[in-house]
Each structure stands twice: as structure tokens, then as C-alpha cells.
């Protein structure tokens, strides 16, 4: 494509956009709305990803110690294992205090000063999925009475979050494909409205690509315009909501944080612009083809 032609194509594309003002508005609107719908899903999806990840992070491994164990030495041993993120020691006294808090003074009275509860380590690992392996490595250590991480509950939680993530990704994929076809079909309609003109250009001796390029550029432009609009609405909308809601959410829901606007912005940017401009260009290029055969 020579520079001169490129200038011509841009000029033609600009004419197409401006002189079909009404149609341009309608098709950009469709594009914006489609990308907004998709974007809303993407935001929800990103938050599902983030929240499930954070919930998983909160999974804990509890190591109960024998009364006579050397907890200093054991701590060192455990910290040498790979992937340990945090380790807290809970003494027998602390354990009793906690039980009293939970069950009331009656129990403590009934125990009459004895303390049957073991001391323990509370451990968090870097990759929650490896918690089972870490537990297996700790169990045989000397001074360890038992290891507990709610195997069944944790496995279920992992299974559940896995399914939730898969589902969420699946929905996004399906929606992205839908958005793709939606935009392509809209572009089709705008090309359809100008099918006669495409024929006339052919009759004046224009080659297929000479006709196609302006439509492709127009498609890219409409796509970018649609993507930009959708991006701005979604990004600033999310930003606003995040500022309002994230603190409340953190307090009220298991200390989980929402996806940050920065992350959401980055992901939306990639997806919306790729979809908008890509489908705009492809949709135009392919739709024009149908009317080139004269």
C-alpha cells in the first residue's frame, strides 16, 4: 500500500464516517453497548478470580504439638520447607483463652485449672494448592502430634473455586465470541446499506482492495471509537464504584479485596480494543467482499 493510496483510503474512510452520520452513530452505539455488556462480565470475572484467589490464600494448616515438644526447633525445621508464607505459634495458654472466649467461662470452671489443649502452629503457604504436600511433610516430624487443615473442606473449597473460575472463564469466552459476531453483523448491516456504491466503484474500474481498504479503515475507526467509549465508561464507572465499595466489601466479606481499577483497566484495554478494532476491520473487510462481485 503506497503512502498516496493510504491518504486516499483515509480520506474515503472519513467521508464514509461523516456522510453517513446517522448510520455511524447507530453502529457505534451498537458497538459500545456490546463492549459494555462484555466489559461488565469481564469486571465480574476479574473479581471472581481475585476473590477466589484470596479466599484460597486464607486456608490454614494447623500443626498440634505434643506437650513435651521443642517448639523453637520445630519452627526452624518447618520454616526450612519450601513455600511457607507465615507461621504463628499458639501456646497452650493461648489455646485455652481462645476456647473460653468461644464457649464461655463454664467450661474453664469445669476444667478446674487443668489445661487439656495442645499448643499449635498456624501456617499459611504461598501456594494454597500445595497445602496437602506441606502437611504430609510436617506430619512425621518429631514432636508433632497431628496436622489438620480441614482436608475435606479445603479440597471442596478448591474444587468449588476451580469450577467457579472455569465457569466464569467459559462465560467470558462465550460472550466474547458473541460480541464478536454481534459487532461483525452490525458492520455487515452498515456495509449492506451501501452495497450499491460498492458496485458503482467496481464499474468505474476500482480494484477490490481499493474499495475494501476505506471500509476496513472505517471499521477500525468505528471499532476504536466504540472500544474507547466503552473503556472510558467501564473504567471510570468501576473506579467510582471501587472507591465507594471496596472498603465496605473488605470489612464485610471475609477480608477479601476487590480487583483494583488498575488491573481491571489493563484487562479491559486489551480485550476491548482488540475486539473493537479487530472485528471492525475484519467485519468490514469480509462484508464488503459479498458485494464486490460485479
Amino acid at each position, binding site marked *: 500500500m*503506497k503512502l*498516496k*493510496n493510504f491518504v*486516499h483510503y483515509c480520506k474515503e474512510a472519513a*467521508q*464514509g464516517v461523516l*456522510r*453517513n452520520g446517522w448510520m455511524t452513530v447507530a453502529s457505534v452505539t451498537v458497538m459500545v453497548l456490546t463492549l459494555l455488556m462484555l466489559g461488565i462480565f469481564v469486571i465480574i470475572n476479574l473479581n471472581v478470580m481475585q476473590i477466589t484467589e484470596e479466599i484460597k490464600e486464607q486456608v490454614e494448616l494447623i500443626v498440634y504439638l505434643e506437650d513435651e515438644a521443642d517448639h523453637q526447633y520445630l519452627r526452624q525445621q518447618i520454616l526450612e520447607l519450601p513455600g511457607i508464607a507465615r507461621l504463628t505459634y499458639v501456646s497452650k495458654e493461648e489455646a485455652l483463652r481462645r476456647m473460653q472466649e468461644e464457649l464461655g467461662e463454664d467450661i474453664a470452671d469445669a476444667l478446674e485449672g487443668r489445661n487439656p489443649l495442645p499448643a499449635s502452629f498456624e501456617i499459611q503457604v504461598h501456594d494454597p494448592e500445595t497445602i496437602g504436600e506441606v502437611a504430609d511433610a510436617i506430619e512425621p516430624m518429631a514432636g508433632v502430634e497431628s496436622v489438620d487443615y480441614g482436608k475435606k473442606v479445603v479440597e471442596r473449597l478448591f474444587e468449588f473455586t476451580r469450577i467457579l473460575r472455569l465457569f466464569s472463564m467459559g462465560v467470558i469466552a462465550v460472550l466474547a465470541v458473541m460480541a464478536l459476531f454481534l459487532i461483525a453483523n452490525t458492520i455487515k448491516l452498515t456495509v449492506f446499506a*451501501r452495497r450499491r*456504491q460498492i458496485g*458503482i*466503484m*467496481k*464499474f*468505474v*474500474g*476500482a*480494484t*477490490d482492495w*481499493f474499495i475494501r481498504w476505506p471500509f476496513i479503515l472505517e471499521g477500525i475507526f468505528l471499532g476504536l471509537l466504540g472500544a474507547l467509549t466503552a473503556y472510558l465508561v467501564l473504567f471510570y464507572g468501576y473506579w467510582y464504584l471501587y472507591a465507594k465499595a471496596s472498603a465496605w466489601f473488605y470489612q464485610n466479606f471475609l477480608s477479601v479485596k476487590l480487583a483494583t481499577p488498575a488491573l481491571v483497566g489493563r484487562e479491559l484495554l486489551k480485550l476491548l480494543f482488540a475486539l473493537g478494532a479487530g472485528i471492525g476491520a475484519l467485519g468490514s473487510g469480509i462484508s464488503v467482499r459479498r458485494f464486490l462481485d*460485479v
Partner: protein
Amino acid sequence: MISFINVSYAYPNGTSALHNVSFHIDKGEFVFLVGPSGAGKSSVLKLIFREIVANSGQVLVLQRNLCRLRRKEIPYLRRQIGVVYQDFRLLPEKTAAENVAFALEVIEASSSEIKRQVPRVLGIVGLKGKEDRFPHQLSGGEQQRVAMARALVNNPPLLVCDEPTGNLDPNTSWQIMCLLERINQLGTTVLIATHDKEIVNRMGRRVLELNNGVLVRDDHKGAYTHEA
């Protein structure tokens, strides 16, 4: 320049438009194509600029066999044929000047060339001052003259006009005809499908007459009707 050899054509819906038409037009000729409405004049022209392809027989135009022309070559054929379409076929979203310029843009003429040529031809057909009007802002005859300007602008070796004066008054028609004759004298082959009896008679050029898809007359120095 143009050879039809036993050409027959039927439209996809089955309407037979041309039967076994044969004729030959040399470089530099000036030919009228006449015949009643629906005789097949436009079909002959459509075969020449390859809107349609003959069902049987051979169509040779500008040293090309159109029955064997590859799809890719069609635009290059059309660039060498200036066509005034019966239904004008102006681009509705482009002004008169832009419509004419488009014919130069497709052959990648320089923009200085475009700037010079477009006002010149629009002036020749009498549309000075109406360059920036859109087709729907022009009268029927003005649109027809824009189509004429577009056909002329890149000096094609072959000029094909379908009813080019159907919407023009006798004076303007005659001016256009004189213009076509001048162009013809500069070497351009001209083929005109027309109903304008007076013009055909006055010009006294070669006349091909179609009737019901059959070539019934080929008169050098002919008139609109056989008897005349």
C-alpha cells in the same frame, strides 16, 4: 477494438436478451446503437464492460477476450472504457467533483492532475459552479452530464454511452454530441446507444440496429430508421 462473434445472452431469470449478435467496431469509429425499448442495447454495452458475460459466442474488447478474462483483470479493462450508464450510477455520498475525481483516483493519478482535470471536464459539460453538489442536488440532466464527465476524464481509448442525452434538451444534447465527435477525432472509439432520432440522423454515422435481441441492420452512414 470491439468484436462480437455470434454472441447470445440470456439473463439469469431466463429472459433471452441477445441472439447470435455479430459485429465489429474498429479503432476510431463512431457508432450508434439503436432499437426499440428492450431490444438489447444496454445488454450489448454491459457485455462490453463486462457487467455480464456472454452465454455463447465471443466478445473481444481492447484485445481482450472477455469470456476468458480473469476476475482480477476486470478493473483494468474498465479503466480503459469510459461508460455513461443509463441509470447514471453516480456515488450518492460524493459530490459531482468527487464522483469525477474517483475515476482518476482509481488509476492513481496524481492529485495535481486530479485538481486540474476535474474542473476542466465539468466545465466542458456545462456544470461549472456545481462541482460541490451531491447527485441528489442536481437536476436529471445535470446528473447525466456528471456521468459524462466521469466517463471522459481519464481519456479512455473507448467510450461507451447508454442513452447519454435521455435527460437533456436538444441544445445541450447537440453540444454533448459535438464534444463526443471532437473526442472521436482525437482517436477515441465511441459507441452510443440512443433513441434520439434527430441526433442519429444529423450525425450520419454508422448505425447498428437491434430488434428483439437480433442485429437487424449495420449501416455505415446510416439514419435512425431504415427508411429515412
